[in-house]
């Protein structure tokens, strides 16, 4: 159950990363399908990250001399991580829910006061959450797994951002084609 909850939180984080990295890169007014694709992209990204993490976990469980103890240690660590991640997720979802209130002031305040700072805090929350989770673990395997998962989750937004930046650069290059010499082309 604990691991399932962590997995669901990872998917939610992936969705939000997908949306965040796509924002500001499409100036259409009607962006429903654009954001739908961004959501799927984030979800897939989180799924890939989770699958890699599961693969590493299984591998560690296979080679670890104390695999029975590892399971309990992992679950205890995951439980501690949830104590950080669940309130954070609740705050993010609560801030998003504020946007349902039909007031431009409240809606925009939800960005300024909550969503913006919460986005800024995301890497820190991840580090603190994983750090706290593995701080009392007894096995080095758990600690190593925690660090692998942390690296993967932090890399997700970076990777999605790079991907979207490439797509955006191609779009802009199409809209503003080069009208200069090949030498300039190299510099651009």
């Amino acid at each position: 159950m604990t691991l399932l909850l962590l997995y669901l939180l990872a998917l939610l984080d992936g969705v939000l990363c997908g949306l965040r990295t796509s924002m500001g890169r499409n100036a259409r007014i009607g962006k429903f399908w654009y954001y739908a694709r961004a959501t799927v992209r984030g979800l897939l990204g989180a799924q890939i990250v989770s699958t890699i993490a599961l693969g590493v976990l299984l591998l560690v469980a296979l080679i670890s001399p104390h695999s029975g103890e590892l399971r309990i240690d992992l679950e205890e660590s995951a439980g501690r991580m949830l104590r950080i991640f669940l309130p954070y997720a609740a705050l993010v979802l609560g801030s998003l829910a504020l946007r349902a209130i039909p007031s431009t002031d409240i809606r925009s305040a939800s960005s300024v006061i909550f969503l913006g700072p919460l986005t800024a805090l995301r890497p820190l929350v991840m580090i603190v959450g994983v750090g706290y989770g593995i701080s009392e673990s007894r096995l080095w395997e758990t600690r190593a797994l925690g660090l692998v998962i942390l690296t993967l989750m932090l890399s997700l937004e970076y990777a999605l951002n790079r991907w979207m930046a490439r797509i955006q650069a191609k779009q802009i290059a199409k809209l503003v084609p080069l009208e200069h010499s090949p030498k300039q082309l190299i510099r651009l």
Partner: protein
Amino acid sequence: MHYAQTVLSCWNPDQPEITDLIVRHNPRTLEREPVRKQEVLEVFQGFGNRQAVRAIAKLPEWDGMLVETAVDRTMLAIHWEMQRLSEEFYHGDRVWEILRAAVKTLRKTGFLDKIRITDIGCGIGYTPRLLASRVSAREQGLEFTGVDLNSTLIREATRLAEADRLGCKFFHGDAFSQELAGNIMMSTGVIHHFRGADLEEFLRRHERKETQMFFHFDFQPWFLAPVGSWFFHQLRMRTAIARHDGVLSAARAHTGKTLVGAARQGAPGFASGIYGARIWNTPAPRVFHTLVGIRRPLVEEFRMQLGHRAGRLDELR
């Protein structure tokens, strides 16, 4: 609030924004003119603004001139990002909230013709496009237009409007010209670019027979505005120039007093005041405030049409 050189040179309101200098147009012909990179760099070196110098240094040059293609690509990326901020701040809804009252006022006072709403310095035309997507312009007899001096941004505004099948139109030119001036003139984040005598001259140009009202939305200056703007631009914007100019805009924004003073001096045919300076009549300031100018015979009707929002409007005179 002057943070000036004593705090951060990049927040010094006396300097221009990078985007003011990297694109230059002939004021008469509107033709694009080449920009010497070193000249732009020297402006910001003069202010000791290393952040701006770093951002400009990244722009490619050819024979000492900024490469227009690269500048235009950067400008597009910046304007896409700026639209995201407008979306996040529900700017279109805020504009329509006040324009709806303006349109009703004109209709109630016997204005039967098509009402042209002109967005000055519209960039990629987010506001006219959003309004065109929300409001049935044909039914209400409205025409949403945007005007900008930058032809690349106007091309992009037109492309986006066509992609979303919106009825608004965009023009490369002078918004105050005979053909392009509107019955309602508006702008977003433009008015702080006019300083001193230029601000008064900008407002004086509204004194045209056909123009009945103007609404200029811009950052509201207060001591935390540049700090908040910095935080938000760091989080939300990706291009170095957008991050720089966004914060500088907040530092350069005019106070309500300056705006109203210039409007009363430059455009005495309008009753002017500030709309929406405070949140729910508390001392907390809104991020944006609006300079409002209304032809005097329309003032009372406009207040009526604002309904419960009339309390957000300061004295108009």
